[in-house]
C-alpha cells in the first residue's frame, strides 16, 4: 500500500483514524488485507484476458504496466469484463511501458480485446436471401455483427497467441465473492520467439458460441471495413478491386467465395 495518504499523513496514522486494531493486527494491517485483495483481483483479471500482451512484454513489465494502467483507469463498470477497455489507449498514450515492442503490444491488445467482444458481445438477426433479393448491389448496405471485429495488424499475433495459450478458450475468471489466498498472477508464460512484422488481416468472431479468429485476404478486409463504414455492397467491392495488387484475378469467383463463407458464418445483419 502507499506509504502516505493524499494529504501527506502516514497511512498508519490515517488507517488508525477509522479502522479498529485488534489483538493481532494493526489498523494498517487490516486495511492492507483489502488492499492486497483489490490488486490480486483486478490484476488477475488482466492476466486472464491478456496472456498475449504478457508474453510480448514479459511478466515483470506486464505487472508494472498493468498496475500503472489500473491506477490511471480504475474500473468504472460493475463487471470485470470491461476492465481492459482502455488498455489500447493507455499503451498508445504511454509507449514507454511496452518499448521496444510497442507496435506488437498494441496489435496484441487490439486482438485480445476483440476476443472479449466476440465472447459475449451482442448478436443481431442474420440477414437472409429473402432480405436481400429485392435490393440491387448499388443500394444494398449490410451490417456486420456487433461481436465481429475486423482488424488490420502489423504482426501475425494470431499465430503467436496460439503458441502462447495453453487453453485457447480461456478468458477471465468468473465473478465471485471469494477472496484470493494468493495471487495467481505468477503463472508460467511460454517463452516463444516474438513474431516478425507481417501485415495480417483478421476477423475475430464466434460461431456456435465458440470463439474463433480467421485470416482475411487484403481485399476481403477492404470489403468488410467498407461495409462496416456504411458503403453499399457495390461500392465496397469496387474499392477492393481498385486497391488490389493481384494479377488477373477472377473477381466474380473470389468475391462470391468470400461472401458465401462470411454469410455462412452469420456475419451479416441488417444495418
Amino acid at each position, binding site marked *: 500500500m502507499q506509504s502516505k495518504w493524499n494529504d501527506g499523513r502516514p497511512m498508519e496514522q490515517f488507517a488508525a483514524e477509522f479502522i479498529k486494531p485488534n489483538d493481532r493486527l494493526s489498523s494498517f494491517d487490516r486495511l492492507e488485507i483489502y488492499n492486497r485483495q483489490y490488486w490480486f483481483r483486478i490484476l488477475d483479471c488482466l492476466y486472464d484476458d491478456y496472456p498475449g500482451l504478457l508474453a510480448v512484454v514479459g511478466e515483470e513489465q506486464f505487472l508494472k504496466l498493468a498496475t500503472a494502467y489500473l491506477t490511471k483507469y480504475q474500473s468504472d463498470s460493475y463487471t470485470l469484463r470491461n476492465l481492459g477497455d482502455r488498455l489500447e489507449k493507455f499503451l498508445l498514450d504511454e509507449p514507454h511501458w511496452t518499448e521496444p515492442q510497442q507496435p506488437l503490444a498494441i496489435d496484441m491488445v487490439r486482438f485480445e480485446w476483440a476476443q472479449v467482444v466476440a465472447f459475449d458481445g451482442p448478436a443481431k438477426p442474420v440477414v437472409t436471401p429473402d432480405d436481400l433479393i429485392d435490393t440491387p448491389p448499388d443500394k444494398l448496405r449490410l451490417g456486420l455483427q456487433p461481436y465481429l471485429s475486423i482488424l488490420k495488424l502489423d504482426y501475425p499475433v494470431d499465430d503467436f497467441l496460439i503458441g502462447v495459450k495453453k487453453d485457447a478458450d480461456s478468458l477471465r475468471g468468473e465473478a465471485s465473492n*471469494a477472496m484470493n489466498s494468493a495471487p495467481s498472477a505468477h503463472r508460467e508464460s511460454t517463452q516463444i520467439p516474438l513474431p516478425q512484422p507481417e501485415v495480417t488481416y483478421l476477423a475475430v468472431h464466434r460461431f456456435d458460441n465458440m470463439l474463433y479468429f480467421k485470416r482475411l485476404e487484403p481485399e476481403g478486409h477492404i470489403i468488410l471495413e467498407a461495409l462496416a463504414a456504411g458503403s453499399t455492397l457495390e461500392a465496397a467491392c469496387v474499392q477492393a478491386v481498385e486497391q488490389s495488387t493481384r494479377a488477373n484475378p477472377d473477381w466474380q469467383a473470389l468475391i462470391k467465395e468470400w461472401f458465401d463463407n462470411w454469410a455462412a458464418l452469420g456475419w451479416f445483419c441488417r444495418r
Partner: protein
Amino acid sequence: MPANPFNGHTEYGIGIGLRVPHYRHILANKPVVDWFEIISENFMVDGGRPLEVLDQILEQYRVVQHGVAIYFGSADKFDREHLRRLKRLVKYTGTPWLSDHLCWGSVDGRYTHDLLPMPYTFAVAQHTAQKIREARDYLEVPICVENVSSYAEYHVSEMTEWEFLSEVVEQADCGILLDVNNIYVSSQNHNFDPYDYLNNVPHSRVGQIHIAGHSKFEKYILDTHDHPVLDPVWNMYAHAMKLCGNTATLLEWDDRIPSFEEVHNEALKANQFRDNIVASSQKNR
C-alpha cells in the same frame, strides 16, 4: 418457516453454484441437483456462450440469482444500466428470489469489485435499507441480503454486525441470506462468539443459507471458498437449521474448483442436518 416471503415461498433443498469448469459435465450428464445458484453478473451479457449455457441449464434446473456488484451499502445511487440488465435477467431466469451482499464497493462510479464492510451505524442502516427497497421495487422480486466476511471494523460503528443486519432487514422488510461461513470467518477475525450472531438475527427472515470453506492464516482467516466446509462451520450450520428451519442451502466453491461430483457430494453433506430438522419437526407433531 422454510418457505417464506423472502424466498418466494419456495422450498428449495441443497443447491450448488454453477461454475464454468462444471459446464461440460452438467450439460452432458444432467446430474440430479435441486437447484443452481448463478452469479448474476456473469450472465448480464448481450450474447454468446454464457447465455447459451444458461438456456440449457434453465431447461433442466431451477436457478436462483446471486449478485456480487449491486452494492446496497455504497453511498452512490444505483447504476441504472446495472439494474436494467439485472431485471432483464430476473425475468429470464424466473428466479424466485435474488440475493446480494450487505456491503459497499463503489465510490463515485469507480468499482472495487470487492465486498467491503460497512460502518454499523443507524444512518448507514437507514440508507442501505432504502436502497434495498428501491432495488426490490424496481426488480419486482424478493431480495435477501447476505452478511459478508470481514477483516476490518470501524471506530464509528454503533452496534454489532448482527444488530446492524437485523436493523437493515427490518427497515427494508427484506430477507437474509445467512452465510454461516462468513459469520465464522468474521467471528475469528473480530473476536466474537459466532453463536451470538446466529442466535440474534431474525430467523423468520432467513430465506437462504450459504456454506463454504475458508483458509486460516497466522493472524486472520480468509474467506477463500477453495476448501471443503470445515467442522466449526458445519456445527454452526446445524444450529442455524434448528433456529431457521429447513432452509434452502447452497455450497459455494469458487477457487481451486474440484470435480463436479466432489463439490456436489460436499454440498449433500448438508442433508444430514436437514434430515435431523425434518425428523425433529415430525416428532413434535
